[in-house]
């Protein structure tokens, strides 16, 4: 059978050209550059470079500081994703039940969305400043021996706290609209079928929120991997001793502070592959459990 063919015109391509051009210039070209650079070793002054095959990769992956950063990234991302999703879900469920002054309440909860990660980081920096920071002094006053400049756990606590705080508002908006998308009559039918509101939440509400949760999980993991760079750069800068260095922050440190363009490119290529695999896993295995 002959398939129907329409006359092609150049006009549609013109319409999508701006988007394509942006993708090529800001995503594909840098990615290609990174792959190319990752095979090169530059001298310290950047005057010459030589092709070294996969040496940058092996230097990267077998480097203890890279492994430390990878390990931290995994823990950091899981915690940030889990905490920001669960806190946002709790807030959304509670806000959804509020009747009086609901819009004020919701606006206040969404407010943090407008703050850029570096600004959130700066705010956190001030709050945890050993001299004037209320949180720093408060933590010590209630008996914690808190010092994020020296203690890796304390430092991690600071960056996780700020990252979660920053992300909760975004998740809140999506969860709230997801909750409002559940038909009222379905909730009512559940009220008549099940006495315990806790059980009702896990058997009816949460499964119906699964598409939202899945979408947010993908977004949040990406956020924790990449966007938290601004927070780390303005607070701990990876200290103490690389304990709060994420993979993205290490790419930046090695490439721009350490001038190791080849090694840093190799790291970003590895990071790209990791994120690619993670996304494939999410869509392959977790999405199957989502009921749309």
């Amino acid at each position, binding site marked *: 059978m002959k398939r129907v063919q329409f006359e092609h015109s150049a006009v549609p391509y013109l319409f999508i050209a701006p988007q394509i051009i942006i993708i090529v210039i800001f995503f594909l070209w840098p990615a290609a550059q990174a792959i190319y650079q990752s095979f090169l070793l530059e001298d310290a002054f950047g005057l010459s470079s030589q092709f070294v095959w996969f040496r940058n990769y092996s230097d990267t992956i077998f480097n203890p500081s890279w492994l430390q950063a990878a390990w931290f990234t995994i823990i950091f991302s899981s915690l940030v994703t889990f905490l920001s999703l669960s806190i946002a879900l709790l807030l959304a469920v509670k806000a959804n039940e509020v009747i009086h002054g609901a819009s004020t309440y919701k606006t206040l909860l969404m407010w943090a969305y407008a703050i850029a990660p570096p600004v959130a980081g700066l705010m956190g920096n001030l709050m945890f400043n050993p001299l004037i920071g209320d949180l720093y002094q408060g933590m010590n006053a209630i008996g914690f021996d808190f010092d994020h400049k020296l203690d890796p756990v304390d430092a991690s606590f600071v960056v996780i706290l700020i990252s979660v705080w920053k992300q909760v508002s975004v998740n809140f908006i999506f969860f709230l609209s997801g909750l409002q998308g559940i038909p009222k009559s*379905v909730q009512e039918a559940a009220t008549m079928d099940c006495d315990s509101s806790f059980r009702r939440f896990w058997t009816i509400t949460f499964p119906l929120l699964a598409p939202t949760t899945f979408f947010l999980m993908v977004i949040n993991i990406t956020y924790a991997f990449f966007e938290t760079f601004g927070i780390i750069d303005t607070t701990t800068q990876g200290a103490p001793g690389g304990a709060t260095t994420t993979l993205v922050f290490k790419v930046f440190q090695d490439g721009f502070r350490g001038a190791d363009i080849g090694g840093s490119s190799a790291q970003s290529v590895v990071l790209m592959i990791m994120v690619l695999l993670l996304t494939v896993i999410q869509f392959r295995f977790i999405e199957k459990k989502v009921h749309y």
Partner: protein
Amino acid sequence: MAQVELRQVRKTYPNGAEAIFGVDMQIADGELIVFVGPSGCGKSTLLRMVAGLESVTSGEISIGDRVINDVSPSQRDVAMVFQNYALYPHMTVRGNMSYGLKNRKMPADEIERRIVDAAKMLKIDQFLDRQPNQLSGGQRQRVAMGRAIVRNPQVFLFDEPLSNLDAKLRVQMRIEIKKLQRSMNVTSIYVTHDQTEAMTLADRLAVINEGQVEQMGAPMELYSNPRTLFVASFIGAPQINLIPVTFDGTHLVNGDIKLAGYSRLPTDAPLVLGVRPDVLSLRDDGQFPVSVDLVEQHGGENLIYGSLAGAHSDTGESQEICLKAGQELLPDMDDRLTLGFNPDESFVFRADTGERLK
């Protein structure tokens, strides 16, 4: 099995809006009561108060001997069928039907037995493992009914369950609901705005208007003996002919029309004469000269719409009138007919209060 009793039930919303103004009602064991009324009249609110989805501001609702005002919805032993089915979209038909039973800690074999029985009765047994989005509207409606039936409740509540179905399916499901209710003999409350559905289903009808029960009784009793203008106009299809009149001491008067046979009516108040379309007939000595505007042929019967010559409606336009006749009467447009009726078969209401005087 249980009787349901409402005593001075009121509903006032937190913003001060009053929805239900003191309803008293007794529903006998196994009876099918239909709440009928225009949208916004409070019929759904009243049903939802029985279900426990709305709080009761004052008054008492009891099922059997138990006052249920403060009993949670799932403990009231009632099951509800919602207008848009309200099936759980992430569960199979079986899951939907078993959910309420599992939460009541019923043994699995008992749940399965009930599901199979209900599914057979509703002819959905081949769909048990499908999800709601794989079913048609009528099938979903059956699942929603099945979910209520397996609960084996003391009271069924139906909130306009057929209004999302197409006309043919609606009639079919209406008959099935009636049959099921008969065979299961469960006390039921059914809310609808469709007066045909109300007339055909109900053991007794409660006509609700502006948060109050205007009249309650068997469908035919309400049809032939309405207590108010509202009940007369709401019950019956085609609608009753309502003609604004005044009483001059001997006759009801509207323009050139003078109707004899009425007495002891107030002469100082505007009145409304109500004549059912099936009470009117062709008579040479009839009271109503009518010019035909439109004939609707319904097959077995013809509905003839015309305007009453010499009379005016209360907006000053020509007074419309409808006659229900056999299929042999088929006048042309603008034909003149003379229609008559027996004054004993007509109603007279006060126009201001709606109270029936005759």
